């Protein structure tokens, strides 16, 4: 009997010789990350639990990204102070302030390695599954328990296999694949499960595209979204392929559901107001008037995403009344985008380029939308009120659709200008 990726990684972590879905196991997460929304609460719970010290300070990471810089002077500074307190008081040396979005830093800095178990206080933790890391979000109380004990209970998840075969058409990207899947299986279609991706299209994807899909698989409710490891994975993490070649789906592994897609059939997709599973092909939403376009986030803020947007915006001007905000996901992406001339392209086109942080996506640092305003973002979630008032409307798309739409002021198809 073969194993799913989730089962293989959990067996490696626990040392168990066999494992089956539904089994309760005690894992020892290899790394754990706390971001600034939760820093004060983690400390509070840690103290209430009467822990004295962090079991493994070298496995803990603190990243300040949601409230960077401060949004509201009244409440936010304590999140920053608590991040520093976690570092100073408990010896957590991996502290990153304003260096970028936590999820991007987790794989960029090699904290979330292939074949390991990683937890973090954020729902989009499955991002690093793009690198074959079993990673999942937990709450701040559980994080306090992980810091103190080094352990976390988990239920071995059932798994869904997604097989995508063929070559993606021009103007169609990883974001369109995952939006299509979420539209099909809906926001609870993967609840508690591991979503595991394979097929020729998936193998052709670059690492940033894999992180995009893994990041957004969460929007179908999954526990984790996993990719097999290959030579690209090894190169990205600076590892020997032989070390991670075991991160492969067994042919006889047991999947509760298998989904098949042909890449050639996928067209640009948008999640429409107001639900991440209210997904429509672009042909049904073309021409919708927009006030603002946001390119960035842990879903689509990579250098590859910046390149896609720059290629469309180069030498052009955005629509007269459009607000275009572009946020590279990390300082590394920012510097590369500068070196490659993308930042200049964005500015010349009329975009506002901001510092790496969670940006408009979490409705916190800035850029809030008001009643009746319509925003199209490359982020991952369009719940009511997330990016502003409850009467603002949110569309989600790939960076290509976003850039093409910024030029016209209405939802536009990038395939027509590429």
């Amino acid at each position, binding site marked *: 009997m073969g194993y799913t990726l989730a089962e293989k990684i959990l067996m490696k972590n626990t040392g168990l010789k066999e494992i089956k879905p539904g089994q309760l196991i005690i894992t020892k997460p290899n790394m754990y990350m706390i971001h600034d929304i939760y820093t004060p609460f983690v400390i509070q719970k840690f103290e209430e*639990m009467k822990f004295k010290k962090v079991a493994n300070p070298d496995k803990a990471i603190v990243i300040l990204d949601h409230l960077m810089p401060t949004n509201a002077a009244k409440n936010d500074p304590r999140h920053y102070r608590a991040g520093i307190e976690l570092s100073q008081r408990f010896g957590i040396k991996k502290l990153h302030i304003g260096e970028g979005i936590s999820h991007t830093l987790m794989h960029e800095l090699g904290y979330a390695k292939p074949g390991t178990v990683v937890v973090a206080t954020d*729902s989009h933790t499955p991002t690093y599954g793009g690198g074959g890391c079993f990673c999942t979000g*937990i709450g701040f*109380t559980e994080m306090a328990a992980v810091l*103190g004990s080094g352990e976390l209970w988990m239920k071995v998840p059932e798994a869904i296999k997604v097989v995508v075969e063929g070559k993606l058409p021009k103007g169609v990207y990883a974001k369109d694949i995952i939006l299509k899947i979420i539209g099909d299986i809906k926001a*609870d279609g993967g609840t508690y499960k591991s979503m595991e991706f394979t097929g020729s299209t998936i193998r052709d994807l670059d690492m940033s595209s894999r992180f995009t899909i893994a990041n957004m698989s969460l929007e179908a409710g999954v526990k984790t979204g996993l990719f097999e490891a290959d030579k690209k994975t090894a190169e990205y993490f600076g590892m020997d392929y032989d070390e991670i070649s075991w991160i492969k789906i067994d042919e006889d592994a047991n999947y509760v559901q298998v989904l098949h897609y042909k890449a050639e059939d996928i067209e640009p997709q948008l999640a429409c107001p107001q639900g991440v599973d209210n997904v429509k092909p672009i042909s049904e939403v073309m021409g919708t008037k927009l006030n603002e376009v946001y390119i960035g986030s842990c879903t689509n803020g990579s250098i590859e995403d910046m390149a896609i947007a720059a290629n469309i915006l180069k030498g052009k001007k955005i629509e007269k009344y459009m607000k275009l905000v572009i946020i590279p996901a990390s300082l590394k992406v920012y510097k590369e985008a500068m070196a490659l001339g993308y930042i200049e392209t964005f500015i010349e086109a009329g975009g506002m380029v901001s510092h790496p942080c969670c940006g408009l996506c979490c409705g916190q640092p800035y850029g809030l939308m008001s009643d009746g305003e319509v925003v199209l973002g490359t982020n991952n979630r369009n719940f*009511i009120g997330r990016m502003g008032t409850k009467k603002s409307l949110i569309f989600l798309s790939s960076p290509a659709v976003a850039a093409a739409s910024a030029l016209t002021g209405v939802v536009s198809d990038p395939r027509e200008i590429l």
Partner: protein
Amino acid sequence: MEKKFSGKVWKLPDDVDTDTIIAGRHGVLPTPKDMSVHCLETLRPELASTAKPGDILVAGKNFGCGSSREQAPACIVALGIKCIIAKSFARIFYRNGINNGMFLIESNDLPDNCEEGDIVTVEVNKKVTVNGKEFDIPNIPDNLFEIIKDGGLVNRYRKLNEANK
């Protein structure tokens, strides 16, 4: 925790997300009590001010979907609501709910067989009853029940750490 309890029903729809339970901008208020004033305000503006301790939320599928924010279950608990019955729960909300000492029950049939204001009776690991109709409910594993019984993960670890002194 009592093995049998009853409460008045607040009926909620499918896919109630964490931003609806507590918006991000209210999630940075100092305590769950402060946040609870805004609990579910976009969906049910009157709930936070009129819900009574012991009331029960009855929801459709995928309750608590969205972010990992633990402020969501914490602000519900701050209203004195300790039990939610839903067709299904989003994964992180389920963990956070238990870790905050809440009793979360999955029942596919009860939500379609009760109305706002009905009285639901819960018998832990046995059944839920409403309007004379009974519905089976799943057993909760022992280690999770210990957490709920102790009033959440904080109390559980405090008890363990104090016992280890």
